[in-house]
Protein backbone atom coordinates (compact mmCIF):
# COMPACT_ATOMS: atom_id res chain seq x y z
CA UNK A 1 0.00 0.00 0.00
CA UNK A 2 1.48 3.28 -1.08
CA UNK A 3 1.82 6.48 0.84
CA UNK A 4 -0.32 8.25 -1.75
CA UNK A 5 -3.18 5.77 -1.27
CA UNK A 6 -3.11 6.36 2.48
CA UNK A 7 -3.18 10.12 1.94
CA UNK A 8 -5.99 9.81 -0.62
CA UNK A 9 -8.15 7.82 1.82
CA UNK A 10 -7.43 10.20 4.69
CA UNK A 11 -8.18 13.25 2.55
CA UNK A 12 -11.49 11.74 1.49
CA UNK A 13 -12.70 10.64 4.93
CA UNK A 14 -11.81 13.99 6.47
CA UNK A 15 -13.91 15.83 3.89
CA UNK A 16 -17.24 14.11 4.73
CA UNK A 17 -18.71 11.07 6.51
CA UNK A 18 -17.92 7.86 4.72
CA UNK A 19 -18.68 4.19 5.16
CA UNK A 20 -16.59 1.54 3.39
CA UNK A 21 -18.97 1.21 0.45
CA UNK A 22 -19.32 5.00 -0.05
CA UNK A 23 -15.56 5.38 0.07
CA UNK A 24 -15.00 2.67 -2.55
CA UNK A 25 -17.57 4.36 -4.81
CA UNK A 26 -16.04 7.81 -4.38
CA UNK A 27 -12.49 6.61 -4.99
CA UNK A 28 -13.63 4.25 -7.77
CA UNK A 29 -11.58 1.42 -6.27
CA UNK A 30 -12.68 -2.20 -5.79
CA UNK A 31 -14.47 -2.68 -2.44
CA UNK A 32 -12.24 -5.65 -1.55
CA UNK A 33 -9.13 -3.53 -2.08
CA UNK A 34 -10.55 -0.68 0.00
CA UNK A 35 -11.41 -3.09 2.83
CA UNK A 36 -7.89 -4.48 2.79
CA UNK A 37 -6.32 -0.99 2.77
CA UNK A 38 -8.57 0.17 5.60
CA UNK A 39 -7.66 -2.85 7.72
CA UNK A 40 -3.98 -1.96 7.32
CA UNK A 41 -4.59 1.69 8.15
CA UNK A 42 -6.64 0.70 11.18
CA UNK A 43 -3.72 -1.44 12.38
CA UNK A 44 -1.41 1.54 11.83
CA UNK A 45 -3.80 3.62 13.97
CA UNK A 46 -4.39 6.11 11.15
CA UNK A 47 -8.15 5.47 11.08
CA UNK A 48 -10.79 3.85 13.24
CA UNK A 49 -14.21 2.40 12.57
CA UNK A 50 -17.21 3.89 14.32
CA UNK A 51 -20.40 1.88 14.43
CA UNK A 52 -23.50 3.82 13.42
CA UNK A 53 -26.59 3.11 15.53
CA UNK A 54 -28.77 1.61 12.80
CA UNK A 55 -32.42 1.99 12.24
CA UNK A 56 -32.47 -0.07 9.06
CA UNK A 57 -32.35 -3.82 8.61
CA UNK A 58 -29.14 -5.60 7.69
CA UNK A 59 -25.50 -5.38 8.73
CA UNK A 60 -24.73 -2.43 11.04
CA UNK A 61 -22.99 0.36 9.14
CA UNK A 62 -19.55 1.54 10.20
CA UNK A 63 -18.19 4.99 9.44
CA UNK A 64 -14.49 5.53 8.95
CA UNK A 65 -12.97 8.28 11.05
CA UNK A 66 -9.52 9.77 11.00
CA UNK A 67 -7.49 9.41 14.24
CA UNK A 68 -5.26 12.19 15.62
CA UNK A 69 -2.33 10.20 14.22
CA UNK A 70 -4.09 10.14 10.85
CA UNK A 71 -4.47 13.91 10.90
CA UNK A 72 -0.80 14.29 11.83
CA UNK A 73 0.15 11.92 9.02
CA UNK A 74 -1.88 13.89 6.52
CA UNK A 75 -0.46 17.22 7.68
CA UNK A 76 3.10 15.94 7.47
CA UNK A 77 2.41 14.23 4.15
CA UNK A 78 1.21 17.49 2.66
CA UNK A 79 4.15 19.35 4.15
CA UNK A 80 6.69 16.88 2.85
CA UNK A 81 5.08 16.29 -0.53
CA UNK A 82 7.61 18.70 -1.95
CA UNK A 83 10.55 16.94 -0.25
CA UNK A 84 10.48 13.36 -1.46
CA UNK A 85 12.74 10.58 -0.30
CA UNK A 86 16.40 11.18 -1.03
CA UNK A 87 17.15 7.50 -1.50
CA UNK A 88 16.11 5.70 -4.68
CA UNK A 89 13.88 2.62 -4.49
CA UNK A 90 16.83 0.37 -5.35
CA UNK A 91 18.95 2.00 -2.59
CA UNK A 92 16.30 1.10 -0.02
CA UNK A 93 15.98 -2.42 -1.41
CA UNK A 94 19.75 -2.79 -1.13
CA UNK A 95 19.64 -1.58 2.49
CA UNK A 96 16.94 -4.16 3.28
CA UNK A 97 19.13 -6.89 1.75
CA UNK A 98 22.13 -5.70 3.79
CA UNK A 99 19.98 -5.86 6.94
CA UNK A 100 18.90 -9.40 6.10
CA UNK A 101 22.58 -10.28 5.65
CA UNK A 102 23.40 -8.80 9.09
CA UNK A 103 20.56 -10.87 10.59
CA UNK A 104 22.01 -14.03 9.03
CA UNK A 105 25.41 -13.19 10.53
CA UNK A 106 23.84 -12.98 13.98
CA UNK A 107 21.96 -16.25 13.44
CA UNK A 108 25.25 -17.91 12.54
CA UNK A 109 26.87 -16.70 15.74
CA UNK A 110 28.77 -13.67 14.44
CA UNK A 111 28.95 -10.30 16.19
CA UNK A 112 28.07 -7.49 13.73
CA UNK A 113 29.80 -4.80 15.80
CA UNK A 114 33.11 -6.67 15.57
CA UNK A 115 32.73 -7.00 11.79
CA UNK A 116 31.86 -3.30 11.63
CA UNK A 117 35.03 -2.39 13.57
CA UNK A 118 37.18 -4.55 11.26
CA UNK A 119 35.58 -2.98 8.21
CA UNK A 120 36.05 0.50 9.63
CA UNK A 121 39.71 -0.22 10.40
CA UNK A 122 40.33 -1.37 6.82
CA UNK A 123 38.64 1.75 5.44
CA UNK A 124 40.63 3.97 7.80
CA UNK A 125 43.94 2.33 6.86
CA UNK A 126 43.16 2.86 3.17
CA UNK A 127 42.45 6.56 3.84
CA UNK A 128 45.63 7.00 5.90
CA UNK A 129 47.83 5.24 3.34
CA UNK A 130 46.36 7.26 0.45
CA UNK A 131 46.95 10.49 2.43
CA UNK A 132 50.55 9.39 3.11
CA UNK A 133 51.25 8.61 -0.55
CA UNK A 134 49.82 12.00 -1.55
CA UNK A 135 52.24 13.69 0.90
CA UNK A 136 55.20 11.68 -0.46
Amino acid at each position, binding site marked *: *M*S*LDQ*RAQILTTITSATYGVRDLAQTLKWKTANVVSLLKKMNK*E*QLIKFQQVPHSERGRPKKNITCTP*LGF*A*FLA*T*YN*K*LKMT*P*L*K*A*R*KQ*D*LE*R*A*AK*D*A*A*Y*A*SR*LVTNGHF*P*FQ*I*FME*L*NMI*ARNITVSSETSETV
Partner: protein
Amino acid sequence: MIIGGYALPFYGRIRTTVDVDLAVAVKTEKELNQLLNSLRAADFEPTIASLNNPLIVVLDRKERIELELWLKPDGVVFDNETLRRRQKAEIDANFWVWLISAEDFIVNKLARPDRGAIDEQDVKSVLTRQETKLDNEYLQRRAKQAGVLAILQAIQAS
Protein backbone atom coordinates in the same frame (compact mmCIF):
# COMPACT_ATOMS: atom_id res chain seq x y z
CA MET B 1 24.83 6.93 24.85
CA ILE B 2 25.96 5.95 21.35
CA ILE B 3 23.85 7.23 18.47
CA GLY B 4 24.49 7.28 14.71
CA GLY B 5 26.70 4.95 12.67
CA TYR B 6 28.32 3.14 15.61
CA ALA B 7 24.88 2.04 16.87
CA LEU B 8 23.82 0.85 13.42
CA PRO B 9 25.47 -2.63 13.42
CA PHE B 10 23.41 -3.51 16.51
CA TYR B 11 20.10 -2.75 14.79
CA GLY B 12 20.55 -2.68 11.02
CA ARG B 13 23.12 -3.08 8.29
CA ILE B 14 26.90 -2.98 8.64
CA ARG B 15 28.65 -0.09 6.94
CA THR B 16 31.72 2.03 7.54
CA THR B 17 31.51 5.43 9.19
CA VAL B 18 33.99 8.18 10.01
CA ASP B 19 32.44 9.83 13.06
CA VAL B 20 31.57 8.57 16.49
CA ASP B 21 28.29 10.20 17.56
CA LEU B 22 27.41 10.33 21.23
CA ALA B 23 24.39 11.87 22.92
CA VAL B 24 25.25 13.54 26.21
CA ALA B 25 22.64 14.80 28.66
CA VAL B 26 24.26 18.06 29.77
CA LYS B 27 21.90 20.70 31.08
CA THR B 28 23.94 23.28 32.99
CA GLU B 29 27.14 25.27 32.40
CA LYS B 30 28.66 23.52 35.40
CA GLU B 31 27.99 20.07 33.90
CA LEU B 32 29.34 21.24 30.55
CA ASN B 33 32.57 22.49 32.14
CA GLN B 34 32.98 19.23 34.03
CA LEU B 35 32.58 17.33 30.77
CA LEU B 36 35.07 19.54 28.91
CA ASN B 37 37.63 19.25 31.70
CA SER B 38 37.29 15.46 31.75
CA LEU B 39 37.77 15.33 27.99
CA ARG B 40 40.89 17.52 28.09
CA ALA B 41 42.34 15.43 30.92
CA ALA B 42 41.91 12.33 28.74
CA ASP B 43 43.79 13.96 25.81
CA PHE B 44 40.70 14.89 23.83
CA GLU B 45 40.46 18.31 22.21
CA PRO B 46 36.98 19.84 22.32
CA THR B 47 36.16 22.57 19.82
CA ILE B 48 33.97 25.57 20.67
CA ALA B 49 31.38 24.35 23.14
CA SER B 50 28.29 26.07 24.37
CA LEU B 51 24.96 24.98 25.80
CA ASN B 52 23.32 26.83 22.91
CA ASN B 53 25.16 24.70 20.38
CA PRO B 54 23.58 21.28 19.86
CA LEU B 55 26.94 19.76 18.97
CA ILE B 56 30.50 19.69 20.31
CA VAL B 57 33.15 18.28 18.00
CA VAL B 58 35.96 16.58 19.89
CA LEU B 59 39.24 15.44 18.37
CA ASP B 60 40.82 12.30 19.73
CA ARG B 61 44.52 13.19 19.42
CA LYS B 62 45.71 9.63 20.01
CA GLU B 63 43.43 7.74 17.62
CA ARG B 64 43.10 10.68 15.21
CA ILE B 65 39.35 10.37 15.00
CA GLU B 66 36.56 12.85 15.47
CA LEU B 67 33.86 12.47 18.08
CA GLU B 68 30.60 14.35 17.88
CA LEU B 69 28.95 15.00 21.24
CA TRP B 70 25.30 15.87 20.77
CA LEU B 71 23.75 17.89 23.57
CA LYS B 72 20.52 18.12 21.57
CA PRO B 73 20.38 15.19 19.16
CA ASP B 74 17.98 15.86 16.27
CA GLY B 75 14.50 14.55 17.04
CA VAL B 76 15.54 12.93 20.32
CA VAL B 77 14.00 14.07 23.58
CA PHE B 78 16.14 13.46 26.66
CA ASP B 79 13.36 12.23 28.90
CA ASN B 80 12.94 9.24 31.19
CA GLU B 81 11.35 7.16 28.44
CA THR B 82 14.28 7.66 26.06
CA LEU B 83 16.73 6.74 28.80
CA ARG B 84 14.66 3.74 29.93
CA ARG B 85 14.57 2.41 26.39
CA ARG B 86 18.31 2.68 25.72
CA GLN B 87 20.15 -0.62 25.45
CA LYS B 88 23.28 -1.80 27.19
CA ALA B 89 25.72 -3.55 24.87
CA GLU B 90 29.10 -5.17 25.31
CA ILE B 91 31.38 -3.95 22.52
CA ASP B 92 34.60 -5.52 23.78
CA ALA B 93 35.59 -7.86 26.61
CA ASN B 94 34.00 -6.35 29.74
CA PHE B 95 33.45 -3.02 27.99
CA TRP B 96 29.82 -2.00 28.09
CA VAL B 97 28.17 1.01 26.50
CA TRP B 98 24.70 2.53 26.33
CA LEU B 99 23.05 2.53 22.91
CA ILE B 100 20.12 4.64 21.79
CA SER B 101 16.98 2.48 21.29
CA ALA B 102 16.22 1.30 17.76
CA GLU B 103 13.10 3.50 17.65
CA ASP B 104 14.94 6.65 18.74
CA PHE B 105 17.77 5.77 16.35
CA ILE B 106 15.27 5.83 13.47
CA VAL B 107 13.75 9.16 14.52
CA ASN B 108 17.17 10.72 15.04
CA LYS B 109 18.28 9.68 11.55
CA LEU B 110 15.12 11.02 9.91
CA ALA B 111 15.10 14.30 11.85
CA ARG B 112 18.55 15.38 10.69
CA PRO B 113 18.23 18.65 8.78
CA ASP B 114 20.84 17.34 6.33
CA ARG B 115 19.15 13.93 5.99
CA GLY B 116 20.52 12.10 2.98
CA ALA B 117 20.06 8.86 1.09
CA ILE B 118 22.47 7.05 3.44
CA ASP B 119 20.35 8.00 6.49
CA GLU B 120 17.22 6.72 4.79
CA GLN B 121 18.99 3.48 3.87
CA ASP B 122 20.11 3.11 7.50
CA VAL B 123 16.50 3.53 8.62
CA LYS B 124 15.26 0.99 6.08
CA SER B 125 17.86 -1.51 7.31
CA VAL B 126 16.76 -1.05 10.94
CA LEU B 127 13.08 -1.37 10.00
CA THR B 128 13.92 -4.61 8.18
CA ARG B 129 16.16 -6.20 10.80
CA GLN B 130 14.09 -5.12 13.80
CA GLU B 131 10.73 -5.71 12.11
CA THR B 132 9.27 -7.89 14.87
CA LYS B 133 11.04 -6.15 17.76
CA LEU B 134 10.12 -2.50 17.20
CA ASP B 135 7.57 -0.80 19.42
CA ASN B 136 5.49 0.71 16.62
CA GLU B 137 3.29 2.81 18.89
CA TYR B 138 6.34 4.47 20.47
CA LEU B 139 8.08 4.85 17.09
CA GLN B 140 5.07 6.56 15.53
CA ARG B 141 4.59 8.81 18.55
CA ARG B 142 8.21 9.95 18.52
CA ALA B 143 8.22 10.32 14.72
CA LYS B 144 5.12 12.48 14.98
CA GLN B 145 6.70 14.65 17.69
CA ALA B 146 9.79 15.11 15.51
CA GLY B 147 7.69 15.86 12.40
CA VAL B 148 9.03 12.89 10.42
CA LEU B 149 6.02 10.59 10.46
CA ALA B 150 5.28 10.87 6.74
CA ILE B 151 8.87 10.24 5.72
CA LEU B 152 8.94 7.21 8.03
CA GLN B 153 5.75 5.90 6.43
CA ALA B 154 7.27 6.49 3.00
CA ILE B 155 10.30 4.37 3.84
CA GLN B 156 8.12 1.68 5.42
CA ALA B 157 5.96 1.55 2.31
CA SER B 158 8.82 1.38 -0.19
